[in-house]
């Protein structure tokens, strides 16, 4: 569904954010992108819908190569790419319904969108999506009146409205508490599984990534240094991604006997999550 070949991004300041990244994400596959701050995670997913213009390389969404597209074709491709943001990026002064409907802007004309006269099918879909994320009783509230978890659900609903093939998720839980983070991640993975999106999730929290995401890609200084199952995140691999630190309590495999308990706890939670999904 998504194929990235030799993606390179050098900012005007001369900072090389990405150095020749190759990555393929199949339909229905969910990839967790981890790495230290400044490794290029955000740049990578922003290059996919060209919110950031890549310097070199090719990006295929389905069969369309998007780095050479003109503005109009780019907008057509963007309609098929949903995006969920770190700090929700909802339009704060609009209602939940307006925010959710804004996912259809690519399909609605200027005047219709200005007057908020969306097609009936879109409104029915918005109700269905809001029901799916559990926000039916918040439809008419303004986005800035919601809690963090509710806002991120609106963000998910807005992305679902696009009926995307590809979902880009930028640090979905960075502004949420641990419990809400888990709920949001669970919801996200459920809808990805239901609809078969190809998904990239940038995530800071290694524990959360191991818990929810089957495939992990590790990025360091703009290059991929690990691509494999979450279970393969050993202390050695985490050192390769993040640098020297005591990883024994975080690593997936219990290399150290002392950490068996911690590893077991993680394992148990993973099983519970798998059961719930």
């Amino acid at each position, binding site marked *: 569904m998504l194929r990235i070949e030799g993606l390179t991004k050098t900012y005007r300041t001369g900072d090389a954010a990405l150095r020749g990244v190759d990555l393929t994400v199949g339909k229905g596959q969910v990839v967790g992108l981890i790495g230290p701050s400044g490794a290029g995670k955000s740049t990578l997913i922003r290059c996919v*819908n060209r*919110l950031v213009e890549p310097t070199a390389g090719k990006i295929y969404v389905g069969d369309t190569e998007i780095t050479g597209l003109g503005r109009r074709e780019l*907008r*057509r*491709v*963007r*309609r*098929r*790419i949903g*995006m969920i*943001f770190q*700090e929700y*990026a*909802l*339009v*704060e*002064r*609009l209602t939940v319904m*307006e925010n959710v409907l*804004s*996912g*259809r*802007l*690519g399909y609605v004309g*200027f005047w219709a*969108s*200005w007057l908020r006269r969306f097609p009936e099918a879109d409104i029915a879909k918005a109700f269905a999506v809001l029901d799916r994320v559990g926000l039916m009783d918040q439809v008419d509230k303004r986005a800035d009146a919601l809690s963090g978890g509710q806002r991120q659900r609106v963000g998910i609903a*807005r992305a679902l409205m*696009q009926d995307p093939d590809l979902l880009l998720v930028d640090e979905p839980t960075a502004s949420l508490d641990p419990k809400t983070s888990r709920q949001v991640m669970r919801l996200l993975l459920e809808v990805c599984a239901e609809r078969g999106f190809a998904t990239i999730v940038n995530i800071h929290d290694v524990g959360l990534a191991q818990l929810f995401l089957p495939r992990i890609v590790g990025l360091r200084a703009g290059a991929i240094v690990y691509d494999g199952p979450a279970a393969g995140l050993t202390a050695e691999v985490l050192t390769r991604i993040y640098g020297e630190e005591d990883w024994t309590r975080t690593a997936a495999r219990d290399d150290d006997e002392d950490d068996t308990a911690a590893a077991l706890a993680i394992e148990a939670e993973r099983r519970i999550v798998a059961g719930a999904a």
Partner: protein
Amino acid sequence: MPVTQQSDGRLAWRHLTPGESLARFAGWFALIALTVFCWRVMTADTIWAFVASAPAQAADIFGRMMPPRWDYAGRLWRPLWDTINIATMGTLLAIVLATPVAFLAARNTTPSAVLVRPVALFIIVASRSINALIWGLLLVAILGPGVFAGIIAIALRSIGFIGKLLYEAIEEIDERQVEAIRATGASPAQVMIYGIVPQIMPAFASINVFRWDINIRESTVLGLVGAGGLGLALESSLNVLAWPQVTLILLMIFATVIVSELIAAKIRKAII
């Protein structure tokens, strides 16, 4: 480097280095010296005998101004209506003209920072640097005396004010919300109405109400140069030394400004 090491090895800290505190003292000293000097220049040409008789003069004029000529009010309702119209129509015209200029001037919405932005900024500066009274003088000469010249004068002066405050509000918006709308595949016009307009709405409304409030006050004096409204009545009363009428006009301006302030405050509160 206010951290220094003392002879016994302890660290000492001061807010400023000795050089910095000396520089600050010199700065304040120069400022006070300049003030004293300016005061001397200002008072050099004053005829102190006139200043000495000021209280008597003031009492004399005030005596002639009292009591206000209340029955003159009947002839003031029409100029008052004109004044309010000049302010309101002028503000509306300015809003229509200034809003696009603000979008062209804001760094994050301008189509071209090299070509278009300087033109928009020039319009804003040109409008702001000329007082409404001077615009009025020019326009009365061009358009002839009357309310129309007043409306245009108010509008021309307000474009800069509204344009400047609005473009600053546009530059301060949260770009992430704009980015999110852009990511859905929305067209540039849709990005504007969904990503930008909701964010600047409170600023837009309060800037305009504030300017309308200022314009009520400005339009009361515009008549002094022949641009219609209460100022025109004020000038003709002053010309014939009809002090009781002047008092009544000043009272009326005062009342109008208070009412407009009240309305403006109400509207602002309702929006935010």
